[in-house]
């Protein structure tokens, strides 16, 4: 889950960067930048969940 989360973080950023190079219209750029940030948020959720302490680690 952690690796998938970080992959999504990078994928979201790649989507944002690719949007700048590939799309010309302001509306399309805005939409894809927001979509990229959405992908990053999903990635953050996965990374955060993968770091929740498991019972065995606690005192």
């Amino acid at each position, binding site marked *: 889950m952690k690796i998938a989360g*970080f992959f999504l*973080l*990078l*994928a*979201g*950023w*790649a989507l*944002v960067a690719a949007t*700048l*190079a*590939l799309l010309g219209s*302001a509306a399309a*750029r*805005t939409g894809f*930048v*927001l979509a*990229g*940030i959405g992908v*990053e948020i999903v*990635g*953050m959720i996965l*990374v*955060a969940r993968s*770091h*929740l*302490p498991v*019972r065995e*680690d*606690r*005192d």
Partner: protein
Amino acid sequence: MTSSGAGVSETASALCFALILLVPFAMAGLALINTGLGRSRSAAHSMMASLMAVAIAALVYFVIGFSWQGFAGGPVHTLSVGGKPWNWIAAEPFFMRGLQFDGSSSSLIVLLQIFSVGLAALIPLGAGADRWRLGAICASTALLAGLTYPLFANWVWGGGWLSQLGANYGLGYGFVDAGGSSSIQVVGGLTALSLAWILAPRRGKYSAEGMPAAVPGHNAVLVALGCFLATVGWCGLNSAGAILFAHGEADGCVLVTLNTLLAGASAGLTAAAITQVRFGKPDASLTVNGWIGGLVASSAACAFVKPAAAVLVGIIAGALVTFAVEWLEFELKVDDPGGAISVHAVSGIWGVLAVGIVAHFPTGYSIAGSDSGQWLSQLIGIATLMGFVLPMTYGLNWLLNRVYPQRVDIEGERQGMDLHELGADAYPDFVTHADEFIQR
């Protein structure tokens, strides 16, 4: 290499030098806050670690950091993407060779940056308090000052691709951050988050059911004093940043300083009011953290907002810090004794976003661009912080942890970092020596 291409007047140059000399107060402030919010048995270790972090950051930045950050107009490595030039890393010589330290804008940028990287290096110490080994702090700081910080700072302040978004794609004036909400604060805050995850919570912080135990800071006076000192330092940081990175003039520093103070004050009051309403009494540590969060959020837009907007930025930052601290501790089980993630990462991201919402750029602003699309530039910057900087800083610290475990062993945590790593307590008078009470 004597000019950044955007020179400053002699008056602004002299004022800028004086303002930069205030930045160490922000470092002292953060060090005191981190120490006061930690346990008493790790207090000396915390201050020692702060000194070490600033020292390592300065030296590593001197050797390699600046060569990759550079400044706008200096030599860079460029990619051509869709026919547009993307500057992605500077190509200055190592050891700052070739620079002339003569009061030019480029030399002032170097001076400000060497303090700024030290400030960024102090931020993760708050999240790793009571369990982060001194050697690992030095190694992690070297990674931050040598790789993560210079790369992102180049993109924002060194003429990199984020700052070119306006010229290349018509997105406002490109990514704008006058005082370092992103390149100093969010970079430091995301490193703090990575380390809090890698180090895992302190023993005894969470029960078997996952409920957090309160581990209060040991000295509220140090924390409050740190807040006062940080405010002085932030006024210098934001004003110098406005002159060097937002092409401001000396007379603009009054507004920048006023905005900085108002944002911090309104954020502190907001945090105090929220904790008063929720818990019946204002919480000192959250009030201080809220105040610092306001300072952090003020940095990005400090040169481009009116005082009323700075108050609004501060109020939202204060509220964000208060709720983020609780959310991280209770929901995400992130043990962050100093509140570094909420204060620097969360507030910093809000500060960056605020540029796109409340900033007004002066007519004839000297950077190429337009008034439309600024908020999209800011969003792209935030996406880069979350999608590139966080994986990078986590990956570097994860690798470091594989070769050099960053967390202290069980005995060290029980004994306290002072005794375990330094061999002496910060407050030796507090120690009860049993043998002193044995009748002879």
